[in-house]
């Protein structure tokens, strides 16, 4: 007990990790406000769906396709970005640095029960778009009503 009081940091870190995980679950319908707020260093992401697929869009300005590593782990989509380091010139003085730098990992829990079928990813004008085709069981089933 005592040690926990002295070192509250690991506990709070775990708490924040879980809270972040909870807040980054895309199954929320909340689209604005607190749940949609972005922590610093995080790349902005939109998740949406239509009848056939889920779409994950992420703002990745300046990132080359070879710097992105996408993987599916169960129903989670992991996006790893390893920026190749630009050599800072010695003759430069930075007046303002607001853009995100360094490596980033983002895990998005997909709102479905089974692993998505197909995945394709493209980058256009600095926006990464990942399309994940829904498995048959995740699609909306139309039921026709017959008349007797």
């Amino acid at each position, binding site marked *: 007990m005592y040690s926990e009081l002295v070192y509250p940091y690991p506990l709070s870190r775990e708490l924040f990790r879980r809270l972040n995980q909870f807040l980054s679950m895309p199954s929320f319908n909340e689209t604005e406000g607190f749940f*949609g707020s972005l922590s610093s260093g995080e790349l902005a992401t939109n998740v949406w*769906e*239509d009848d056939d697929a889920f779409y994950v869009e992420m703002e990745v300005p300046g990132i080359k396709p070879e710097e992105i590593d996408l993987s599916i782990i169960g129903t989670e989509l992991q996006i790893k970005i390893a920026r190749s380091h630009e050599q800072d010139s010695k003759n*430069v003085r930075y*007046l303002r640095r607001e*853009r*995100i730098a360094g490596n980033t990992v983002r895990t998005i829990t997909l709102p479905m029960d089974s692993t998505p079928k197909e995945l394709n990813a493209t980058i256009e004008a*600095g926006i990464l778009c990942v399309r994940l085709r829904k498995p048959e069981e995740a699609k909306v089933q139309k039921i026709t009503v017959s008349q007797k």
Partner: protein
Amino acid sequence: MSLVETKNNTASQTNQEPNTQEKPFRIPPVDISEYENEYLIEADMPGTKEENIDIQFHQGELRIRGVVNTPNEKITKRIDRYRQFETSNYYRAFKIGESVNAAEILAHYANGILTVHLPKAEILKPRKIEISQK
């Protein structure tokens, strides 16, 4: 010393709303760096196109505008699950003053990044002064 003061003021910002009739806009994050002969502004503006970017330099103020078209929004069956970025337009303005050579400002857009080169005015460039021998 007064030269240093001028340089610090070059990046002072004036994010005045461009036009009240326009849609809400986003302020793109920027890196501003100073080199021996120029200032460099790099702005993250993903989702726009080269032809939809408008850069103006007027009375010492640099204004950057980027229009974002949203074809995906037209899909009627789209259900948003999670939304962290908006598809609104970009706008940002900087007070630069007379410290740049306005006629030679260059800009290019690639992979969602707008880069603006602002060559320093002759008066700000370092000059080597030769010592003449009598």
